[in-house]
């Protein structure tokens, strides 16, 4: 297990370095940040000065070398636009994004699994059909459109919820969170629901399919034959067995929900990393783009690790398998 963990850690580092190089090259290929940062009326002297000040006068490989050696000591460069360490900019915004993503996942899980179970156990009932029809809607409507409709309905027409921003935050273990205040909660509700919708539909469909498969299995029939109550049959025998693929998907989707909360963040002006990334790409703020991707890659690696552990707790066979033949 330990050897496996160490090997995986090495692989992760390699992925990180490769990613940084690709991103560095990619942003470099797009063009010259000075062109976008500088006031168009600036003269040649000023252009040359700005290019040198941002370190862009050196060859790309040398710039990358400087970046790598600084990165080894934890310095991912300074934002061209804001003149603060890029990593600070991201870490300032990350709690907001993670909070939004987690809230969305909580909504998706607490609604998605029970609804999926109902739809799977009673596939031909009216309720079951209604749930499935709803999940199709959740799948096919574009996120930005749903977001705007939510705003039009709850903010503009009804005036119940604020249309943008994050609301009041309090410190929890030194991290600002908004779900502990009423103001924060009302600000969180709509964007979280908006972000959750797609995942919710995904979980409903996945749970339903797995449930339908599971109820036909012999061990369920046997459990029923033994005379166990429906609560125990569903809660222990069905649910525990279908949870493995669901946990995997939840883990992967958590990563993507953090990385791709961009649309929701920009519609609700949620001050998270997605919005920061878009703005940084638009201004070719290379250090922020690179640092952001580093953080996200690290996050993905960490989440995958946690998923693997959760997996092995649910199914001991996985634990045995992974140390025997690491994939």
């Amino acid at each position, binding site marked *: 297990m330990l050897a496996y963990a160490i090997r995986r850690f090495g692989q992760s580092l390699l992925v990180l370095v490769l990613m940084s190089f690709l991103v560095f090259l990619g942003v470099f290929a797009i063009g010259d940040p000075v*062109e976008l940062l*500088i006031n168009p009326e600036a003269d040649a002297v000023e252009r040359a000065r700005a290019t040198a000040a941002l370190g862009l006068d050196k060859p790309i490989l040398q710039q990358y070398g400087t970046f790598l050696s600084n990165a080894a000591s934890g310095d991912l460069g300074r934002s061209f636009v804001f003149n603060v360490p890029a990593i600070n900019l991201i870490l300032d915004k990350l709690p907001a994004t993670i909070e939004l993503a987690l809230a969305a996942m909580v909504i998706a899980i607490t609604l998605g699994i029970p609804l999926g179970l109902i739809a799977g156990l009673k596939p031909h009932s009216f309720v079951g059909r209604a749930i499935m029809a709803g999940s199709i809607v959740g799948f096919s409507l574009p996120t930005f459109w749903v977001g705007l409709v939510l705003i039009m309905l709850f903010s*503009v027409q009804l005036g119940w919820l604020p249309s943008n921003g994050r609301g009041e935050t309090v410190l929890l273990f030194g991290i600002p969170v908004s779900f502990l205040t009423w103001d924060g909660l009302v600000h969180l509700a709509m964007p979280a629901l908006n972000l959750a919708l797609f995942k919710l539909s995904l979980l409903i469909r996945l749970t339903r399919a797995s449930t339908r498969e599971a109820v036909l299995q012999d061990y369920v029939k046997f459990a029923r034959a033994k005379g166990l109550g429906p609560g125990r049959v569903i809660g222990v025998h069905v649910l525990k067995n279908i949870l493995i693929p669901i946990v995997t998907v939840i883990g992967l989707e958590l990563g993507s929900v953090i990385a791709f909360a961009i649309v929701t963040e920009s519609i609700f002006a949620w001050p998270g990393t997605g919005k*920061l990334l878009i703005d940084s790409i638009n201004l070719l703020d290379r250090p922020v783009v690179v640092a952001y991707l580093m953080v996200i890659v690290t996050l993905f690696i960490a989440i995958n690790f946690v998923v693997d552990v959760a997996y092995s707790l649910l199914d001991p066979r996985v634990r045995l398998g992974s140390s025997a033949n690491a994939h």
Partner: protein
Amino acid sequence: MLPITRIALAALFFAFLPHAHAAKEREVSIGLQAAVSSIDPHYHNLSPNNSMLLHIYEGLTKRDANQKVVPGLATSWKAIDDLTWEIKLRKNVKFHDGSPFTADDVVFTLKRVPNVPNSPSSFATFTRPIVDVKVVDPHTLIFKTATPHVLLPSDLASVYIISKLNGEKAETSDYNSGKAAIGTGPYKLVEYIPNQRIVLKANYGYWGGEEPWDKVTFKVLSNSAARVAALLSGDVQMIESVPTADIAKLSKDPKLSLTDKVSNRVIYVHLNQSTEKAPPFVTAKDGKPLEKNPFRDARVRKALSMAINRDAIADRVMEKKGVPAAQLLPDIFYGTSRKLKVAKFDPEGAKKLLAEAGYPNGFALTIHGPNNRYINDDKIAQAIAQYYTRIGIDTKVETMLATAYFPRATKLEFGYMVLGWGTESGEQGSALRSLLATHDPAKGMGMNNRGRYSNPELDKALNDALVTMDDKKREGLIQHAAEVAMNDTGLIPIHYEVSTWASAKGFRYIPRTDQYTLASELKPIK
């Protein structure tokens, strides 16, 4: 009742009004389109920053709603000779911390401007012509320039004065945290969160009088739909840059009021004339290369200008929020010529001119432009393409993100380029110098001349204007330069953008040509 008592009663009534008013904190929230990258007034010369910084700091001069230069922290300025300026400073002005404003603060500011570390676009452009500063007394200064610099009063409006007392050891981060963000402006900084919000409160000791607000919150809402939604739901009381597609609907809403003004930004076309042979993306109809560069022929340029129906673009593509352009700035600005008229839409005449120039069957070109930089930029390119197809030019359109577009346009990788230009100085000379003067980076001429148009007569008039201190004479020279360039179709002006603000009922915004959004100009109405 006797008239006199009626007046007395009315006076009594109004005397009590301000008190009733002051009882409630006067707060307002404003939705901004673009992020403000710093509160350091000398770090990043970009208009969203300059607009925000005007609340906290002031320059020696200011620009009014039409960008005319008016007194700021200086009450007067005059050129003693071609190289010497005397500047009188305003007395009894205090910084936010209560310390007095004097000549030393100006000297300190001028020293700091060119030396801000890591600045991606510095304000040194405005201070570089000043080679020496002498303090005569605490409220009088003598500036020396190396060459005659007629734009000095205008440039000084862009140099925000900071206090020596607080600025001595301050870095950009100290301004952003608010520690050093001490100016003389009408508002004090309370909170700055990059990319999210800026909170200001009134500076009650402001020399310019009382402000309409006690507290102002600016929210960065870069997504247009989010900005409109925030206004409709009452989260903000005003937004800038109303998307043109929503204007018709919003102006019918009785709970809102819209206000607009023609801006200093012109949307125009550069025709790449840099090469003897045809520029990239300009070919014969069968795709074969052209012998000559058609854009070097004034008749072709004129035909391409005449073929565009500017009224239709302003009316339909821009939903009436565009004004057809004949030069680089609307008529209200300094240096514009009344003699220049918008090119008449005349496809038949354009065809004739093309035939005369040796292209009776036209040729093929690709229009390049951004799709996220100017109002409806990609739709403008599409509309132009339709007009060209009509006169027998096979036209393709390729638009891309500004990030990808501008660096390539600067490297002259395109033939036909849709661009925009906002003239912050408010006088046409600087626009002509940047966009149409012969490209010469060493002299700072034609810095953004991506068409590489070159005309000695234009260059001479502009060079003379640069050293002519007499305002009337100089304006004549600039007008002449504009006429030369426009009659020769050095570039193709399309329209001036009209900027639109929308506010909730009970508020009125006084719009500006520089597209700045200033809380001071947002007034409550009864």
